[in-house]
């Protein structure tokens, strides 16, 4: 790479200082010291060199705000290279970042504050506080605070651990080194010490430590390339410019002084406005002059800039916010039942307090004589009421006390258990090697920890196409050159894999990617441009190599003699074309702002890039004006077929055009992406005219983009066709199979793509989304009326369809969606779409994607999942119930917004069918079980209260009551929630239909809730009344009977869980039996404390016969009804899951295909029937 001498170019920049103070208009002369082997062609004094990046910066100019004067109040003033003065008035934030929330000192108060944002904890706290009032003290002080303290403690440990990890990563980030100008010399400095106003030098492949305004770069034009992948997820290189006025600055030699007045820090990463004053020259700065923290410098040796925003004021940090938190469907439904439970709670409390009121009224006169009540006290020598505040207050206190006693009716511990279970489930999802992407080395990521179970209930999958279904790796497949089709399908077998390489300075240059080349075409390309055909081929590949914005980057390879060229650019299509051109001997070797070097069949040729009209969505094509070595000036253009045939001179070679059109049709029906390439030679007059208008347009202050577009359309006309290219958009591995499984599972797959209709349909075919027997309904209307008509017709069609007729595929484009979404037509589209087997939306804008997801989400209760990889999928991912990001090529934007991220589309199958199914089943059961577990305990206390004169003496000691949901019965449900699984992975993957259990809400629904509650009532009656009847009229004391109940309830709830466990592994065994043993130990310990009333009670009660008889009878009698119901439903109306379990156990799966009896219908048959 040749570097420009900055001093030399400064001479030139002086001469054009008047032209623009806004942009780095590059009027530098092409006196670049070119590589020696290049034949230098100079256009002499054609004036200022056409600016390669003209239209690009014109667009950035479109922000149009840089002209505005920045208000003094809203501005920050930066003295370049004078951080002391800069920070004198206002202390700007330092460059150290802190993503951690707490420090050691603030941890306790802040963490508590954060935790009490949860309603559940407030409830806990309120109950604990109530219990501290002397009138209401049901439990001992310590015992009542224990559960809350435990929960807070566990959460605090979790938070502390997470924060510690953030502290660690912050520390690593903050101690990275950057080169900073100190006392006229660049020295290494830790990132955290960088201050606003300092001058920073960043070299190639380094990450920017803060937001800097560019002063100069290694490129003589002041251009610098950056990769913004960490910021907006786009992997392509973006160009940034240093101001012409500061280009020559060498801060190590001369002292640079000046000021920058810029806006206050904000989070707009695409906007920036500032004024800079250097040496008395004033200029304004725009978004193209700033490089943001987190970007990586590429393809540029170094840049020098001034730090303007640091630390948390950088745009990257201001933008770093997590994805919006979602709440799982199951949890929403659970909250509905929790409201019911709180009604139960109120009902129980009302019953107790009413009965107490009745008792009080009936015994009003006796209160003072009742030995167990004794209203009056004479202790202080005079008569007064003891702990009695009138009947109304007494009833009220009774109510409050019963709330305290029955508090666990609301299963607060459930929230904690659910969080722990989700962490456990996430652990297993992350550790699943079946969801590990080999090619990108990315593991599955669980970014949201609260919607694991939603994965088991998905009914709609909205998928992006590019990068999600397809790899976004384009492969050049075939070309049609001058009406001749060169499809290298036949040749692909013996295709050359070595790839083309050229020798430079004893080193071989080779493209990084190898392309299978058609040997015949290769031979013809080598033959030179003697023949007419050869010339066409030459021009065709020249166009491929030149007409793009690809930047070649040289890299070392394993072999010392070989260097590799990596083509980097915005569009993967262009990359594929350039690689293809290289394979045919047209290797793009170098690109600077003014010229490109192409190695044409071993001969280095230098082309001057006189002008480049970038792709825009109106023209749908791009063109480049090249000054060729033979002094001719040529326009090369490439673009979509529709856009190109409009500008092609139809009078020339009609048969070539029609042949090309035929080939295009063939290519696109194969699912290839097509581009048409055209060319025209400009004569002197045309060139002059273009050049003057181009220059005028690119230096225009207002409406530059529109003017450039007009210039482009003037020159892109009367082109002659060179040919067309077909690029294969490779499907990702396993996509068709996954889509088929999803459909089998009753999930509707919608593909939303920005691609054109034909491409979308062809991808639909290749991914088996659309099959040939489907009826296609295509809606691409350009007005609301026709849209309405078309929808109506389609609706009629779908309604008149009989059972056996073919399924419908709906294809609708973005234009029609404009009329449909947010209008009354939405409803019709919804009706139509819900009838269709497949929906393909093409040419949709990012926001439309979100609109389509919302269309389904708002009208049905069905769960939606959106999967995508690009920044354009972010809105869709955030709107859907579950957002999945593909951590692939297009960067991290989608991943950042997603709830789950994974490497490939096909992981959707294990994610939904295996983990989603398990998570849903586990969580659904766990919620019901926790309701039961707490309610049975509360009912036990309630029944006892009825036998204590409604005074809320607890049957079970304080400590046991509190430990019940903490130690006695919490671990089994958590472990079962993490480890139990109803069916094996193999079965679930093999029969996606089993996924229907989650869609039909089989594991958690109101019916199950009520059944559980009735069961709970029965179990609590058995649990309470068997010991009661056995010990009625005996000498049993309260503590002994309490111990019996404690043990009985714990054994009961654990056996209840045991009965429902599907897979018993050693951990589950350990935890279930361990809990029962732990309970016995705890009860013994509690009863071994002499100070408590229940001292030694458990040993006494254990020595009596009825104790053991009760302990045996209670669980059996309590569970008989449940057992009968379970057995009967499993036997008489078995669900799919049950059948599959049986088949798994007894091996009837294996006889499939073995003959005999009814077999599982093979998946392909099923597809056809559907």
């Amino acid at each position, binding site marked *: 790479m040749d570097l420009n001498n900055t001093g030399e170019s400064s001479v030139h920049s002086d001469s054009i200082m008047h032209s623009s103070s806004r942009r780095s208009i590059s009027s530098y002369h092409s006196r670049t010291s070119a590589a020696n082997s290049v034949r230098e062609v100079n256009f002499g004094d054609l004036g200022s060199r056409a600016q390669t990046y003209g239209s690009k910066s014109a667009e950035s100019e479109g922000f149009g705000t840089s002209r505005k004067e920045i208000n003094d109040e809203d501005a920050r003033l930066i003295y370049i290279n004078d951080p002391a003065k800069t920070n004198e008035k206002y202390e700007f934030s330092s460059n150290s970042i802190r993503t951690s929330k707490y420090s050691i000192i603030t941890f306790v108060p802040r963490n508590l504050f954060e935790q009490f944002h949860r309603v559940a904890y407030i409830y806990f706290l309120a109950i604990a506080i109530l219990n501290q009032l002397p009138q209401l003290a049901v439990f001992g002080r310590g015992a009542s605070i224990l559960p809350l303290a435990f929960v807070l403690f566990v959460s605090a440990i979790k938070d502390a651990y997470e924060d510690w990890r953030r502290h660690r990563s912050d520390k690593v980030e903050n101690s990275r080194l950057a080169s900073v100008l100190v006392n006229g010399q660049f020295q290494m400095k830790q990132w955290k010490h960088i201050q606003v106003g300092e001058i920073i030098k960043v070299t190639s492949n380094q990450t920017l430590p803060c937001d800097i305004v560019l002063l100069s770069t290694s490129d003589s034009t002041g251009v610098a390339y950056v990769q913004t992948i960490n910021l907006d997820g786009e992997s392509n290189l973006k160009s940034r410019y240093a101001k012409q006025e500061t280009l020559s600055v060498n801060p190590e030699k001369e002292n640079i002084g000046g000021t920058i007045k810029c806006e206050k820090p904000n989070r707009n990463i695409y906007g920036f406005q500032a004024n800079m004053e250097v040496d008395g020259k004033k200029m304004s700065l725009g978004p193209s002059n700033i490089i943001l923290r987190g970007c990586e410098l590429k393809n540029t040796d170094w840049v020098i800039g001034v730090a303007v925003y640091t630390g948390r004021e950088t745009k990257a940090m201001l933008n770093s916010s997590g994805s919006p938190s979602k709440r799982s469907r199951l949890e929403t439904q659970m909250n509905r039942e929790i409201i019911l439970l709180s009604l139960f709670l109120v009902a129980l409390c009302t019953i107790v307090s009413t009965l107490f009121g009745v008792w009080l009224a009936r015994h009003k006169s*006796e209160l003072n004589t*009742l*030995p*167990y009540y*004794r209203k009056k006290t*004479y*202790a*202080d020598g005079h*008569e007064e009421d*003891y*702990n009695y505040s009138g009947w109304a207050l007494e009833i009220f206190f009774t109510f409050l006390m019963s709330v305290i006693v029955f508090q666990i009716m609301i299963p607060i511990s459930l929230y904690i258990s659910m969080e722990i279970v989700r962490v456990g489930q996430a652990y297993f999802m992350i*550790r*699943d090697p079946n969801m*590990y992407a*080999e*090619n990108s*080395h990315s*593991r599955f990521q669980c970014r949201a920890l609260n919607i694991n179970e939603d994965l088991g209930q998905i009914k709609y999958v909205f998928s992006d196409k590019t990068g999600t279904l397809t790899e976004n790796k384009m*492969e050049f497949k075939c070309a049609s050159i001058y009406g001749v089709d060169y499809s290298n399908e036949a040749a692909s077998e013996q295709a050359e894999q070595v790839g083309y390489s050229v020798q430079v300075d004893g080193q071989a240059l080779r493209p990084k990617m*190898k392309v299978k080349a058609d040997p015949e075409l290769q031979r013809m390309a080598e033959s030179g441009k003697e023949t007419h055909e050869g010339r066409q081929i030459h021009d065709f590949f020249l166009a491929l190599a030149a007409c793009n914005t690809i930047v070649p980057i040289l890299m*070392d390879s394993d072999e010392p003699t070989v260097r590799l060229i990596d083509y980097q650019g915005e569009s993967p299509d262009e990359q594929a074309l350039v*690689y293809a051109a290289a394979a045919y001997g047209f290797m793009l070797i170098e690109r600077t702002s003014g010229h490109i070097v192409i190695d044409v069949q071993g001969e280095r040729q230098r082309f001057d890039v006189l002008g480049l009209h970038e792709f825009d969505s109106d023209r749908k094509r791009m063109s480049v004006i090249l000054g060729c070595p033979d002094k001719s000036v040529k326009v090369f253009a490439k673009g979509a077929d529709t856009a190109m045939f409009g500008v092609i001179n139809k009078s020339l070679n009609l048969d070539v055009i029609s042949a090309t059109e035929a080939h295009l049709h063939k290519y696109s029906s194969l699912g290839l992406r097509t581009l048409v390439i055209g060319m025209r030679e400009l004569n002197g007059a045309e060139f002059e005219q273009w050049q003057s208008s181009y220059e005028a347009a690119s230096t225009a202050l207002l409406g530059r983009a529109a003017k450039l577009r007009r210039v482009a359309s003037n020159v892109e006309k009367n082109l002659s066709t060179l040919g067309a290219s077909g690029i294969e958009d*490779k499907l990702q591995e396993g996509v068709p199979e996954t889509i088929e499984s999803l459909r089998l599972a009753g999930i509707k797959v919608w593909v939303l793509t920005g691609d054109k209709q034909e491409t979308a349909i062809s991808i639909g075919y290749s991914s088996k989304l659309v099959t040939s027997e489907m009826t296609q309904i295509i809606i691409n209307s350009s007005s609301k009326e026709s849209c309405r008509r078309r929808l109506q017709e389609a609706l009629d069609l779908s309604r008149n369809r009989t*059972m056996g007729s073919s399924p419908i595929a709906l294809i609708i484009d973005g234009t029609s969606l404009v009329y449909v979404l947010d209008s009354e037509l939405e409803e019709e589209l919804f009706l139509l779409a819900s009838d269709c087997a497949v929906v393909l939306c093409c040419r949709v804008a990012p926001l439309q994607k979100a609109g389509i997801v919302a269309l389904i989400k708002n009208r049905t209760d069905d769960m939606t999942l959106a999967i995508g990889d690009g920044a354009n999928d972010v809105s869709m991912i955030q709107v859907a119930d579950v957002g999945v990001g593909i951590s692939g090529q297009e960067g991290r934007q989608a991943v950042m917004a997603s709830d789950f991220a994974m490497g490939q589309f096909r992981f959707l199958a294990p994610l939904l069918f295996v983990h989603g199914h398990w998570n849903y089943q586990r969580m659904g059961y766990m919620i019901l079980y926790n309701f039961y577990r707490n309610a049975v305990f509360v009912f036990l206390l309630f029944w006892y209260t009825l036998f*204590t*004169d409604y*005074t809320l*003496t607890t*049957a079970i000691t304080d400590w046991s009551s509190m430990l019940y949901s903490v130690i006695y019965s919490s671990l089994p449900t958590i472990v079962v929630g993490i*480890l139990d699984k109803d069916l094996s992975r193999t079965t679930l993957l093999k029969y996606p*239909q089993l996924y229907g259990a989650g869609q039909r809400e089989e594991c958690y629904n109101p019916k199950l809730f009520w059944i559980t509650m009735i069961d709970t009532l029965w179990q609590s009656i058995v649990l309470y009344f068997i010991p009661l009847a*056995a010990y*009625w*009229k005996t*000498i*049993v*004391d*309260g503590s002994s009977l*309490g111990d019996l109940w404690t043990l009985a309830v714990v054994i009961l709830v654990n056996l209840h869980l045991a009965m429902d466990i599907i897979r*018993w*592994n*050693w951990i589950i065994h350990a935890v279930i039996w361990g809990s029962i043993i732990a309970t016995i130990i705890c009860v013994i310990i509690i009863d071994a404390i002499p100070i*408590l009333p229940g*001292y030694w009670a458990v040993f006494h009660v254990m020595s009596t*016969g009825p104790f053991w*008889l009760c302990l045996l*009878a209670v669980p*059996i009698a309590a569970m*008989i009804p449940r057992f*009968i119901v379970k057995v009967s439903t499993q036997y008489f109306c*078995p*669900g799919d899951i049950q*059948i599959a*379990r*049986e*088949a798994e156990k*007894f091996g*009837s*799966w294996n006889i*499939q295909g073995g003959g005999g009896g009814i077999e599982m219908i093979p998946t392909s048959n099923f597809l056809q029937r559907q």
Partner: protein
Amino acid sequence: MNSNATTTSLGTGSAESSAPRRNSKRPKYSRFTQQELPACKPILTPRWVITAFLLVSVIFIPIGVASLLASRKVVEIVDRYDAECVNATTKSERVKYIQGPGDKTCNRTLRVPKHMKAPVHIYYQLDNFYQNHRRYVKSRSDEQLRDNHSASEVSSCKPEDTANGNPIVPCGLIAWSLFNDTYSFAINNRNLTVNKKGISWKSDRDHKFGKDVYPKNFQNGTLIGGAHLNSSMSLHEQEDLIVWMRTAALPTFRKFYGKIEEDLQANDVIHVTLKNYYNTYSFNGKKMLVLSTTSWLGGKNNFLGIAYLSVGGLCFFLAMLFSLIYLVKPRRLGDPSYLSWNRNPGGH
């Protein structure tokens, strides 16, 4: 520079060239992380269901029979005396009687229905007395009972914490309401010795009621709740108090009074002389005197036997029922034709 990437060629990928380094992020395989720990997957097959029901009935029916037999063997004499021992019909008169002065001796005769083997336990049974009332159960001080130096630990004893400005030992409602009816027994004018030693729990005597704690200031207040205590006997020896302080779980309860350490013959007539001091009249409570032998099951209680027999019987019936069902309507387990999508192909 990523050497791996450079060797990657388009299309073919380079899975075969995966170096160990490449697998560094790949989750390690283990049976645990794969959730494939060896596990037992019980399924409720007909055989299992019938076996389970039969097993329960086989265990429960003998236990039920044994319990019933044990209960039948227990000989129990229950004599309710609260009404008969008061010469009054209305509640207020009874209360007046019990609170008034005078001799409250009452004579009862009991006939022994069957031979009662020694030791015969003597209980008193109270009814409608809520010893589990929360005002009541809380009103005690375990520190004070245990330790001589904690005599003033009476804060939890309200409303019987202090009398005349001094702390009461033992304080609290429970101790204050100590049962004070007494019984003496005679057969054919021969007095039966009632052994009142060892009626309380040894654990209570040893660890909850201190040997050096003596009653102080007890029943000195305005209201007298129940028994007076011999202030020269340490609480450790006051077994009636210790028994009483172990509050009953349920509102109908018995308390150990003593033991008769000799056999009682069938048709023996026992003369009971009792002092009817305790006021249950103000809350319509019943008082009963109970003489009972014991078995491994405790006292006479048919409930457990009946419960066991019913559960066992029900399970036997269910076992039969399910056998019948499985015979009449068999279903091949794991038969794929029962799967919803096979039963109803294409139907949605």
